[in-house]
């Protein structure tokens, strides 16, 4: 076999780096792998948020993120469900602040790369999404009036507010104050980013034909990557550098919250974003040209959106268990098993013909999990200058 490999490499010298890496990727697989990078991509400020990227707003947003005064009962903050030590999730199946909600907390990482926010995409901007938990009775349970009163009666908060937004909380309406605080929260959350991962190093080595660097990537992860971009077809939806196409699919996770209550998923999310006064077509966007409003302008609500949920990014995925919109799968092994044994008799399969059971062997399942574990890197904030948990 070795002499055969030698002849092959003499004939096709471009295969040498891959041969040393031992897993042989086809041209199509290489092209798909390269589309998952380079990392990090550019993440410019949000034009709909005039304080996006502003240092003072980021610092103010960080303070608010951990401030329990945003909750009705002074007991909870954004960090209750989005904890830095859990990659800005809470490790719970379904999150709970004032009361338990129906869904699993999504990580708050690389958010400038997203088009929609929340499992159902009920918000089209990060600042609009940041308003929801403040007002939701099960989460922070506050109101615009309550937030305005607390801000106005705290001199330090009020001064900071004026420094960041250039207006006074004494004269701004409660709704304007609520939106501005959400924009400061968004400015902070935008700085929560993930650094380079072992996969990124492999991907760049593959692009450069650096055999030595490629060989440092574990063999099991390489085999798992080959499944991910090949027979698994995972990369069709978990597409691009952030490992998501940013859209919504029904992958066969039940959407009945109780036997008599359904989580509508994307279907309900579209109705909410279209009706929201805080969407990108509305008066609170700071982008007069509405340059990022195309998704909202052209969105359509279809019956197939029932029970669809957003395709999450897979970056940092090993740190964000449990998985799926309802947190019903405890581990990555369970997620892989779900796809390997996908129920072909599940409802609503007509619009998701791509999703067929993968029938992976036990070794292939292990390899796929090993690959997913290589998508973890350091969590950065303030453009990498500070750890967000400090």
């Amino acid at each position, binding site marked *: 076999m070795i002499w055969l490999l030698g002849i092959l490499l003499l004939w096709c010298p471009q295969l040498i780096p891959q041969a040393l890496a031992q897993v042989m990727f086809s041209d199509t697989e290489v092209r*798909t792998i390269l589309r998952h990078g380079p990392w990090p991509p550019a993440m410019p400020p949000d034009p709909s948020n005039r304080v996006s990227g502003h240092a003072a707003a980021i610092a103010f947003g960080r303070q608010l993120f951990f401030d329990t005064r945003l909750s009705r009962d002074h007991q909870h903050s954004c960090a209750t469900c989005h904890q830095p030590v859990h990659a800005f999730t809470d490790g719970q199946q379904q999150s709970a602040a004032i009361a338990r909600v129906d869904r699993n907390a999504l990580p708050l990482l690389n958010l400038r790369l997203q088009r929609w926010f929340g499992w159902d995409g009920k918000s089209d901007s990060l600042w609009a999404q940041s308003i929801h938990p403040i007002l939701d009775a099960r989460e922070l349970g506050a109101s615009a009036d309550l937030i305005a009163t607390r801000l106005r009666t705290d001199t330090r908060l009020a001064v900071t507010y004026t420094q960041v937004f250039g207006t006074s909380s004494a004269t701004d309406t409660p709704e304007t104050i609520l939106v501005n605080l959400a924009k400061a929260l968004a400015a902070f959350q935008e700085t929560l980013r993930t650094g380079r991962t072992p996969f990124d190093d492999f991907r760049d080595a593959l692009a450069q034909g650096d055999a030595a660097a490629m060989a440092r990537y574990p063999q099991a992860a390489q085999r798992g990557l080959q499944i991910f971009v090949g027979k698994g077809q995972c990369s069709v939806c978990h597409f691009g550098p952030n490992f998501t196409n940013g859209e919504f699919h029904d992958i066969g996770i039940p959407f009945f919250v109780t036997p008599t209550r359904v989580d509508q998923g994307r279907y309900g999310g579209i109705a909410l974003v279209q009706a929201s006064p805080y969407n990108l077509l509305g008066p609170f966007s700071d982008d007069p040209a509405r340059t990022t409003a*195309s998704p909202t302008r052209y969105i*359509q609500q279809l019956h197939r959106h029932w029970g669809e949920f957003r395709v999450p990014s897979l970056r940092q995925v090993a740190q964000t268990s449990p998985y799926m919109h309802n947190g019903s799968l405890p581990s990555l092994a369970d997620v892989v098993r779900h796809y390997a044994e996908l129920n072909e008799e599940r409802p609503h399969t*007509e619009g998701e013909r791509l999703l067929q059971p993968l029938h992976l062997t036990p070794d292939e399942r292990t390899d796929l999990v090993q690959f997913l574990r290589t998508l973890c890197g350091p969590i950065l904030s303030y453009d990498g200058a500070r750890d967000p948990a400090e």
Partner: protein
Amino acid sequence: MGLEAMSQGVGGTIISSAIYIALWYGPMLTHASDCALRIQAPSYTRLESQALVLAYRFEPPQLRVGTFFAVDVVVCTGTHAAQPIAEVLVDAHMPAHGHGMNYRPQSVAIGPGRFRADGLMLHMPGRWELRFDVRSDGQQTRLSHTFELQE
């Protein structure tokens, strides 16, 4: 991002010869000069039925997964030369997946036989079917074009 044009379906074959167009279709066009010029332009892809010749191009020209784009459409009438084109609707589907786009494009007339559709976004790599529904004088003609949107 590559785009492999493969004509199929109702639209029939794509013909690129400008000479052929000039000889056979030029005289039948209602807005002949504009239509013939655009249909000959290499940046346009041409589809045809018995009654219509349609040419389109993407803006921007190179499609990317998950990126919004527009379609510039020119429709030249043949046997229906006396009837203006009322409307051209543009949509896209993934036949193998059983779904279309998550967005509804909006099409507007920008001149005689000319239309622009905004708001298209292809959210997955793979084979897409681009559909043009041309409405004129109470009749509807569908022209389609299938292509591979690569990763």
